[in-house]
């Protein structure tokens, strides 16, 4: 593979990950091209990019998932390469192939590798061949309910139903007993169909209170492969990660080295190139089982960046340009500890129900050890069409305790008005004795939801006083200023905006 230099990269994504990639392009002196649906015309990724191209109506199926439109935009803008981010087309082998055929470099593995590794059951077969332990379950995708029932009975309950093309917790169901199987399979297949256009599923034995630990890998076109240690991702709600950290409080140096070696073995076996992540489940005896491989940048990649000092997105771009890895395994060192909290537009008090809307005011934390990877600014809309991830708040500290303390400080500084977010939920996670002690598994969030919050800690009297003074001030203002209405000033920008003459 000969080296080439990209002059222009199209970022085939939206939200915080598009912002992340656009920032990397700018720092590398590469022109960035954003694509946007009609719902995202003025979104932050469009504002930050050098160029921006419309690709269709709001629904993802009509825009961000339209391979033809993304390829057209890349061609029309004169891009040399395409970065897919995560989600949408990132693990779509057809998209990678379409890029290759259009003469565009797809920043990720080759399309045939995606097809091989990205399909979950074929990855499991590959892992077995490379000597990795896997969770007991099916090694082939299942296409009908009868096959699902047969395999379920063979493996036994509880079990996990998973989308063969899946990722990100979509099309995934825990099934406790045979009675739930049919309806769970229906839901998993319908979600998988709408998320990936592929409703095949497979069945895996569900481990009891499993922990979820993954290994980051990087491979260049010259046969060099390294791992960048682990990420602990056991804090999940609805099978989606919400808090991630590295190092994992669970891993010993020996176990870390062993899992890293297993990951590198699978990468070599599959001829994998660029960034990837191997997900493992661990049971209570700390025995790791390979679960699946994500053939793209991971949402939670910043925690790895903070402890290794490596910029994974720039490295992805460098590898796609044909450069060799600039370091060997022995050069990589973990320094300190990093935690990520995913700030979702969701109401944690209502079962994490999505809560789209306009961000009426925003105060983002800063200062030492804090990184905020956000897709929005004050005044922006969180549309109801896409994943409700608003921002990733990341804290680094000298050790786990100081990273946690710093994250708590930052969560307290973070203010999002106009929509509900998961921030108050993180406040509870970050001071829970089990979390502080590293006693976490994938059932942590559910357990937390059943615990009542101590009442005395909440400054309710201050809240009551503030609301009363606010109501008093409002009433007085309404009396003395005929033009002033019921709401405080900033909340009326919306109406005013139209008066400014633009379309907002």
């Amino acid at each position: 593979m000969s080296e080439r230099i990209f002059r222009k990269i199209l970022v085939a994504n939206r939200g915080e990950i598009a912002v992340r990639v656009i920032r990397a392009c700018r720092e590398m002196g590469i022109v960035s091209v954003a694509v946007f649906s009609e719902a995202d015309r003025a979104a932050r990724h469009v504002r930050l990019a050098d160029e921006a191209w419309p690709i269709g109506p709001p629904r993802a199926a009509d825009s961000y998932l339209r391979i033809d439109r993304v390829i057209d935009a890349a061609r029309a803008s004169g891009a040399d390469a395409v970065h897919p981010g995560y989600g949408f087309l990132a693990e779509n082998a057809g998209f990678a192939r379409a890029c290759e055929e259009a003469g565009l470099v797809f920043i990720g593995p080759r399309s045939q590798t995606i097809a091989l590794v990205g399909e979950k059951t074929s990855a499991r077969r590959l892992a077995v061949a490379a000597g990795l332990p896997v969770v007991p379950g099916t090694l082939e995708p299942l296409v009908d309910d009868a096959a699902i029932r047969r395999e379920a009975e063979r493996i036994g309950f509880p079990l996990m139903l998973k989308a063969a093309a899946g990722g990100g917790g979509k099309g995934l169901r825990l099934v406790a007993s045979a009675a739930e199987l049919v309806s769970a399979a229906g839901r998993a297949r319908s979600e998988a169909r709408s998320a990936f256009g592929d409703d095949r599923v497979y069945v895996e034995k569900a481990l009891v209170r499993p922990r979820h630990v993954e290994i980051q890998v990087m491979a260049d076109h010259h046969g060099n492969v390294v791992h960048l240690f682990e990420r602990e991702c056991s804090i999940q709600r609805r099978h989606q990660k919400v808090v991630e950290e590295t190092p994992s409080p669970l891993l010993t140096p020996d176990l870390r080295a062993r899992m890293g070696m297993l990951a590198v073995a699978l990468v070599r076996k599959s001829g994998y190139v660029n960034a990837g992540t191997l997900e493992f489940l661990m049971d209570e005896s700390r025995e790791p089982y390979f679960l699946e491989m994500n053939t793209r940048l991971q949402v939670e990649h910043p925690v790895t960046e903070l402890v290794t000092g490596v910029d994974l997105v720039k490295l992805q771009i460098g590898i796609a340009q044909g450069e060799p890895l600039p370091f060997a395994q022995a050069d990589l060192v973990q320094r300190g500890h990093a935690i990520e909290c995913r700030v979702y537009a969701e109401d944690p008090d209502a079962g994490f129900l999505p809560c789209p809307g306009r961000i009426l005011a925003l105060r983002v934390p800063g200062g030492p050890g804090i990184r905020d990877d956000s897709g929005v600014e004050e005044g922006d809309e969180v549309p109801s069409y896409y994943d409700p991830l608003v921002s990733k708040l990341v804290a680094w500290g000298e050790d786990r305790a100081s990273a946690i303390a710093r994250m708590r400080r930052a969560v307290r500084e973070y203010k999002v008005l106009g929509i509900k977010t998961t921030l108050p939920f993180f406040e509870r996670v970050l001071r829970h004795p089990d979390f502080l002690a590293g006693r976490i598994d994938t059932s942590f969030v559910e357990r937390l939801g059943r615990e009542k919050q101590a009442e005395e800690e909440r400054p309710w009297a201050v809240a009551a006083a503030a609301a009363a003074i606010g109501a008093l001030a409002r009433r007085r203002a309404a009396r003395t200023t005929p033009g002033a209405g019921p709401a405080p000033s900033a909340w009326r920008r919306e109406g005013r905006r139209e008066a400014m003459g633009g379309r907002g």
Partner: protein
Amino acid sequence: MIFDAAVDGQTHRVEVTGSKGRYTVAVDGRPLEVDWREVGGPFVSLLVGGRSHHVALEPRPGGYRVLVDSHDFAVDVLETTRDAVLAPRGPAGPARLVAPMPGRIVRVLAEPGQEVEAGQGLVVMEAMKMENELRSPRAGRVVEVHARELQTVETGFLLVVVE
């Protein structure tokens, strides 16, 4: 001015006197000296007896969402008089379950006449790429069901009424 303020479902009598940023606020008869400064948008700096609080007030029907430091409160505020009986709180009148976001109804789990528990799932909506179960705000009897399977609804669409 006197208010009944319901915080997290608990009603308190709040009496406010003062002006221009200096207020005395009696919450259930316990007086607080409050120094109040607006600092841009919905944000207010409060000093309450030397304690500093970074507060944000977001208007909502019936009152405010109030952020105090890292805490998130829903406060209903009702003007009242000194002699009024403290307003009762709790499940009174029918509860209306509305669509919290635009989306598509995947399944309707309730039918008219059915007895339901608080927190029981009534409707499954697909929105933001996920299926979301919408739960009953209170225990009671389902009296109206407007949700239809496969129907696309906007935010605020009335789905179910529980009495």
